[in-house]
């Protein structure tokens, strides 16, 4: 049987400052080594100042993953040398002397499958190493400490996954959950990283490190299973080792350094006193936690009669569900959900497009209302959306600019249909025997009405006229 376990590192990107100093948690907007101070650079004499907000957000994650949350937490030093580690030790958490990390054992359901969470810990991200140079001989190593000290939550799972598909489903659910909690934006580059361990047929466990994205994680796990299976088939022993994911060649490679032999000499970080997280704090955090994805979905279905599939798509994405929450009324909820899932999601499908979009909740509300009041057709809504995303103009302006209002009345539409029938005699004849041809005629009507006619309605009228 294949067993896969994960270690997921998620930055708390939505925090203002780093874990132990007031430098920005959002290091991405800086030139190299400009988002640094004596503390995150580990300068002699500096001390860590624990960011209480980070402890709260990490505890929230633990609660959302149904983990046990201890009364008191503490930090440990993990001692090792690496150029990206300013102090040559990392401040992290550990549970070997009792449960002292932000989260203990928990569970996340993936469909009907239970994935056990081993623990959740809060730690500091190291800096970033950039290798430059074309060959090994002239390679140089550059270090950017802007990232050093960024709050990082490590989520460790039991080896409960049996195939890469389960891994992918888990990661999708987890990243939606973290985004919904408002603690992390998984779409930011490097915000979520993972290590995996893989074994087959109760054989040795192989760790895969250095996987930069969830997309690659699935590939890496897939590759590793195939590699182990082909070794197994040929009776070649699978050795317990750490392998690195080669991003360019998309394969796992045995690590030259024996990382599993490192002795981290863990001991208590006494510069940070024990932090009490009592029931009062936990209750407060619980009350501040946003509605869960599943509860949102349920509400969308029961309250607004939105189809389950649409509700599912809408609730699991924080960006769109936030937009929905701000723009819908009881009357137009279904319409808003429709516009988002059928039109908007296709138009705004990348992070960049989301950021450059000029669409507001008010726009969306007005578009839905315009459809419902019959001012524009369902069909025109997409054009309005497209224009607003680019320009941010008011809905009424866009409608009149594009001449989308004044939807044709039945008699007006009938007049146009009659003129199309008289112009397209050949097509009309064909349509009588071949139903496919009638779509051509609908298209002609749409052309003449500049898309303002309702296509379904037009089809009905056409059918009646022809037959």
């Amino acid at each position, binding site marked *: 049987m294949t067993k896969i376990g994960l270690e997921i590192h998620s930055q708390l990107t939505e925090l203002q400052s780093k874990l132990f100093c007031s430098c920005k948690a959002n290091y991405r907007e800086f030139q190299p080594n400009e988002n640094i101070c*004596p503390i995150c650079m580990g300068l002699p*004499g*500096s001390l860590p100042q624990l960011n209480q907000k980070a402890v709260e957000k990490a505890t929230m994650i633990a609660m959302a993953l149904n983990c046990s949350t201890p009364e008191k937490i503490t930090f440990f030093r993990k001692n090792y040398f690496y150029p990206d580690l300013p102090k040559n030790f990392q401040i992290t958490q550990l549970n070997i002397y009792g449960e002292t990390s932000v989260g203990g054992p928990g569970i996340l359901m993936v469909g009907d499958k239970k994935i056990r969470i081993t623990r959740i810990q809060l730690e500091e991200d190291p800096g970033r190493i950039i290798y430059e140079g074309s060959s090994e001989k002239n390679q140089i190593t550059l270090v950017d400490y802007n990232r050093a000290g960024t709050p990082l939550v490590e989520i460790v799972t039991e080896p409960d996954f049996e195939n890469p598909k389960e891994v992918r489903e888990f990661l999708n659910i987890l990243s939606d959950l973290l985004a919904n909690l408002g603690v992390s934006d998984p779409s930011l580059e490097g915000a979520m990283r993972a290590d995996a361990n893989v074994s087959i047929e109760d054989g040795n466990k192989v760790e895969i490190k250095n996987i930069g994205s969830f997309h690659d994680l699935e590939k890496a796990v897939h590759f590793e299973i195939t590699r182990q299976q082909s070794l197994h088939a040929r009776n070649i022993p699978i050795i317990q080792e750490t392998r690195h994911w080669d991003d360019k060649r998309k394969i796992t490679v045995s690590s030259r350094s024996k990382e599993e032999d490192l002795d981290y*000499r863990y001991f208590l970080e006494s510069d940070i006193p024990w932090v009490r997280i009592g029931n009062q704090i936990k209750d407060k955090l619980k009350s501040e936690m946003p509605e869960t994805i599943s509860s949102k979905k349920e509400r969308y279905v029961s309250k607004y009669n939105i189809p389950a599939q649409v509700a599912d798509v809408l609730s699991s994405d924080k960006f769109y569900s936030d937009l929905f929450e701000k723009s819908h009324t009881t009357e137009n909820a279904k319409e808003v959900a429709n516009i988002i899932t059928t039109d908007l999601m296709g138009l705004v499908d990348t992070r960049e497009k989301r950021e450059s979009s000029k669409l507001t909740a008010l726009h969306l509300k007005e578009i839905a209302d315009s459809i419902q009041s019959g001012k524009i057709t369902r069909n025109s809504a997409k054009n309005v959306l497209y224009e607003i995303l680019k320009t941010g103009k008011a809905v009424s302006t866009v409608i009149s600019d594009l001449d989308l209002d004044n939807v044709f009345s039945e008699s007006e539409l009938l007049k146009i249909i009659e003129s199309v029938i008289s112009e397209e005699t050949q097509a009309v004849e064909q349509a009588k025997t071949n139903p496919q041809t009638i779509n051509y005629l609908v298209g002609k009507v749409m052309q003449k009405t500049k898309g303002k006619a309702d296509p379904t309605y037009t089809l009905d009228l056409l059918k009646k006229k022809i037959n």
Partner: protein
Amino acid sequence: MNLKISALQFTREVKTGNISVEDFIGKTMEHIEKVDGNLHAFLSLNDNAVNQARDIDKKIKSGDKIGQCFGMPISIKDNICIKDTKTTCASKMLENYIAPYDATVITKLKQQDAIFVGKVNLDEFAMGLSTEFSAYGPSRNPWNTDYVPGGSSGGSAVSVSAFECVASLGSDTGGSVRNPASFCSTVGYKPTYGLISRYGLISYANSIEQIGPLTRTVEDAAFMLNLIAGLDSNDNTTINNNNADYLKDIDSGIEGKKIGIIKEMIGEGINPTVLSATKNAISKLEQLGAICEEVSLDMVKYSVAAYYAITTTEAGSNLARYDNLRYGYDFSVEGYAFNAYIEKARKKLGPEVTRRMILGGFVPSSGYAGKYFLKALKVKSKLTRQIDEAFKKFDLLISPTVPILPFKIGEKINDPASLFLIDINTVTANLTGKPAISIPYAISNGLPIGIQLIANSMNDKLLLQAARALEKTVKLPEVPI
């Protein structure tokens, strides 16, 4: 100009206009020029001190608001950061390191118009108790320059004892303020752990060390504490002391107070002269109305072993950053070839630091942690329980600060184990976080002896009152410089 006055006398004299700050600082700098070639208390001097003094005189003259230090000359142990000033830790590794920020204690003293005359010598990274492990050469004891001044805050003790400043800040990890204070006949005080911010103190063993003042009088120590103690958002381990005034009621005396004489600190290995001085001090305290009685803390016999297991573990981690990548050798824009870098990575660290870092790699390593490091932590918590138990019965504890007299420079440098054992009376206060103070008590054949008092956590005020009471019974000859 009398440079021998206490800190409180200095502020009174300046306030009343009897002395000008410029005069006093000028004379102090001249005196340093004269005596420090031999004593070697200072690693660097503040070239701007006289100008700063002149500015303070102007402020006084024009009636501007003035800080409580009134331009008092203070020396600072060279492991405490002063912005834009070299902070070397007496190590070649930080030979050219210029701190880009002020330690919290420095910020507070600057606000009170203190003048930092210079940075003073220490054992490299505060590891040692004789100042012989300074990479820049040992300091000498003003009472007899053939002898060590104690350590690791040797430069602080020498500078106060030899009138090169009025007060000094040192740091105490296992006795590093009290030991040199005892050897040089000054007051040396380690407050309750957390009472003074450690932000800007370069860590050696961060779980137990504290910044502490070295002064001429107990009152001066209380005065310094008033200025630098209290909660600091830069140090999560600091304690709120509600702006306590440690000078107020300092003459309350010790009548009726119960004092425990720590049996394990006056037994085996103690110098007979030190023992008789201690007994003498106890009888003086009894005459003042204290009730003195022996108490046993049997964990003390494991305290030095535990101390070294814990401090080397923390040092191994705290000093790991000095890997020559960012500190040490000159920075080359082209970078380093990896092998050359690794080869000389630690070469700038001296023998004692190297010894402790190697121990620090071993003691907490997997397979040995249980035998050494975790056992040391057990001793620490048992010792804390024992001393807490003792404080249910006693208000204070007493012992000699150091069980022996100052020794000659070079005498013990090749015998690190015997050096380690000298810490036996001082490490208990660090391992348990309790406040402790060394008071100059006697001079034997020209060499000083100090007495140590220990109080319960946050009883610093009581500790200072008792120390003040004992100090009043003492009349010592003047330092022969």
